[in-house]
């Protein structure tokens, strides 16, 4: 492996660890005013909502990101319904995988002129 690649990986690891480690090792962050604590209590749902939205609705195109409701979006919606009703993460994710794969399979058959 080239030395430059190793250097980049090490530097990436250092800056990434800094973003993770500093708030955890500096004690000041563990004693926060109540208003800040209430705000932080909402950070997790806001962040996870953001991650779910961007990863299920945005696709990277050569000309830039664009919105797309595709098979994986439908799979994610089905997972939310299953999670809401059954409270089972493995079942919900399994449903998302199966539905996404099935929709892509049907789409591929359609593109190839249907079942012969």
């Amino acid at each position, binding site marked *: 492996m080239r030395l430059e690649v190793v250097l980049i990986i090490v530097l990436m690891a250092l800056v990434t660890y800094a973003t993770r480690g500093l708030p955890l090792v500096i004690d000041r962050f563990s004693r926060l005013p109540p208003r800040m604590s209430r705000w932080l*209590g909402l950070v997790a749902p806001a962040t996870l909502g953001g991650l779910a939205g961007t990863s299920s609705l945005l696709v990277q195109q050569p000309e830039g990101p664009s919105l797309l409701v595709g098979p994986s979006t439908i799979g994610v919606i089905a997972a939310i319904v299953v999670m809401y009703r059954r409270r089972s993460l493995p079942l919900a994710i399994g449903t998302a995988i199966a539905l996404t794969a099935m929709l892509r399979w049907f789409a591929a058959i359609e593109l190839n002129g249907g079942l012969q």
Partner: protein
Amino acid sequence: MSALVLAGAAQFAAVGLWAQGVSWPAIVGLTALINMRNVIYGVAIAPWLAGFPRIHRAAMAHILADETFALAVVHFRRIGVADAFGYWMTGLTSLVWIVMSAVGHVAGRVVADPAALGLDAVFPAAMACLVVVLADTPASRVASASGAAMATGLGLFLPTGVPVVVAAILAPALGGVLLRQRP
């Protein structure tokens, strides 16, 4: 790279930039920017982990990522206290990332299109399902819905990683203001 950096989005971006001949300071700088949400995770989870020795917290920091943060917060809320074993168990997701990176390196030559197997739905589905668990109050439901809308809208214009950071800062405030709970 997966074991040392342990940050999927930044790793994908770095490989893409490296392939395009982008300089190393730019790659490292973008890595810091993409991973800036870890700061928010760290600040949010720090009060839970305050009882552990600093050296233990420093070790815990290495596995703090989207999945570990989400699972740890859900777990701590459910049992009402932070437990070290539970936190380290969330680190299994990091182990899976490292192992699967290696598997992908080998199997990638065999499987022509992993998306055809529906595997690209795993991450968004997992995040969305954890939102279902976490959004248990009106304020948290507003925060998660506005976070999703904000990050997705901004994602059309801003670089990878930045929209989620902006949403993570603004959406909780919106959730609090809308429901007259001061953020």
